[in-house]
């Protein structure tokens, strides 16, 4: 079901992009990643805005927790009232993420399957190619050479893993909402260290086609951020206006400075 709805269309989109854009695998991966990320942009913006607004709302929530620490029912009521007044949906950050997640997994799986780094993966590919689109099968296997890379094997020069770590770190930095307390800041720091390192480890261990995917995803994400940063910041500004107080000066400054 997941394959039929998501993975197969992505695989065939990739083959079409490969066919009509110079038969370059990296170009096909980049174009399909870009298209899907752009399609997901409204959801991502909504999620980012919601995350930032909630982050800036945290001091108020902390105050409520302190005030009603012995009365959970009252605490819940007050929290809901606060959310309502500010026009924030407490699940607003989760829902877009839940919708995006299967799409991103579908994109990832589509890329991995179409790259068919191992012979067994190539064997699974014909079942995923639409026969009603003429001559897609003749494109397989996709060209695996790109610059110094053989997309089917790990990068022997470790250039791709390094690029993946660097872009992952920067992308993470852009997306991380300003911390409102020491614990959140520590968490942010850890995320900014661990996520890039983990991506780098996968990029170094698996076929370099995967590293290309990570790199393109990060670059598209960074590009997206700068294209839509006004929207990212406006969410924070709206939150600030709604709460009128509570948000730290540091976080407001950071959120608005990017607009």
């Amino acid at each position, binding site marked *: 079901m997941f394959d039929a709805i998501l993975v197969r269309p992505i695989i065939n989109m990739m083959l079409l992009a490969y066919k009509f854009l110079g038969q370059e695998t990296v170009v096909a991966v980049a174009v399909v990643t870009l298209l899907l990320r752009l399609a997901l942009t409204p959801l991502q913006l909504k999620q980012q805005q919601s995350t930032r607004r909630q982050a800036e709302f945290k001091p108020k929530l902390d105050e409520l927790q302190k005030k009603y620490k012995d009365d959970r029912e009252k605490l819940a009521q007050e929290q809901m009232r606060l959310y309502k007044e500010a026009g924030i949906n407490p699940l607003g950050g989760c829902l877009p993420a839940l919708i995006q997640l299967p799409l991103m997994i579908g994109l990832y799986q589509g890329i*991995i399957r179409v790259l068919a780094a191992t012979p*067994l993966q190539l*064997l699974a590919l014909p079942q995923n190619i639409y026969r009603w689109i003429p001559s897609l099968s*003749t494109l397989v296997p996709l060209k695996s050479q790109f610059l110094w890379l*053989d997309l089917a*094997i790990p990068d022997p020069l470790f250039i791709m893993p390094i690029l993946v770590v660097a872009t992952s770190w920067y992308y993470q930095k852009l997306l991380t909402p300003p911390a409102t307390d020491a*614990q959140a800041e*520590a968490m942010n720091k850890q995320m900014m260290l661990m996520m890039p390192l*983990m991506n780098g480890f996968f990029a170094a261990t*698996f076929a370099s086609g995967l590293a290309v995917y990570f790199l393109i995803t990060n670059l598209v994400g960074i590009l997206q951020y700068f294209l839509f940063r006004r929207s990212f910041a406006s969410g924070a500004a709206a939150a600030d206006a709604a709460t009128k107080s509570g948000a730290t000066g540091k976080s407001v400054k950071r959120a608005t400075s990017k607009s």
Partner: protein
Amino acid sequence: MMGGWHRKDHAPVARRAGGRRAGLWALVALLLAGVMTGCAGGLRHESWPGLAVADDTLYVANLAQVEALNAQTGKLYWSFPATPDKGVGPFYSTPVLAEGVGEHGVVLVAGYADRSVYALALGASPAERPDELWRFSEARGQFVGTGTVADGLFLIGNGDGRVYALRLEDGTKVWEFATRGRVWATPLVVGDTVYIASMDHHLYAVDLATGTEAWRFKAEGAITATPLMIDNDLWFGDFASIFYRLDLATREASWTFETADWVWTTAVHDGDRLYVADVGGNVYALDPASPSVTWTASIEDVVRGRPALSEDGSLLFVAGFEKGQVHAIETSTGEVRQSWGVQLQNPGRLPGDLVTDGDQLYTMPILVDERVQAFSLASGELLWTAPGTAE
């Protein structure tokens, strides 16, 4: 002072937060690893193991080891390397036996990730552990295809698009021939010409002595099937779902047949008819003389491995990859026999070629512990497995 006080004051909170963070990270790492390995084929690299049989001995390229087994019992004679070595294999390439090298011949096999060809000098008895005679590690890509022996050379294609001609005695490279795609098909040697099928859509005719190109034929799709020579024609299929008869006199396709799916594997010839299977599980019997299609059958499973014929040619055995079952097809009618073969509880998957020695049919399933299974050709009864029932 302030810093010290600050750290001390928050230490229990930080520890709790650290514990929660560690748990969160473990969860994220597990999820990511699950997604990654689910798509990348698992942490253990599975391959399609290959098997060659000679003098009642099976030579098996199994994951990261080459093994010699007693063909009657499945008893293990030796493994190379003696214990699995991360630097060796895994193997897709089937072992090839070459006589006239060393005292008792050599077995040649090529690894996938290690990109190396190994020549193992056999001992006087099958049970004697072989010595590594030479190793060739100059290829830049992975070895998937099986090699062939001709005129004192070992010829094998590589994922770097090249075919390497290595001197059997010492592994010295005599020549290499470059194509623009991976070479997974076994080079076919006829006289002084090597026919090389490449995934760049071409079939090349190359001089055996020098490795220089004589001519090339362009197919519609990638070619992984080794061509089959009948009279003066080469027969092979490609990923564009076309099966060709290539006339060597004109160097053009004199007949083509459209299959329902990719043709990955080499056809089988019984001296009269030609049998070819596509990856969609369709099996075709062709009359090469007319040429025409005699019958078609379907095993309703993915087919990657080369089918095998029974001793008398009355049955064609075809391995279904996903369901892990061997199907017996009547060669006279194309009828798929329902009763042949035991139904294993966990059959695994069958990507490899089927091999027979006249009495037994050998399969090499993956994703199961019993990596080699021997069946009676007559009844389909399971005779032994290795490891498992073998003593």
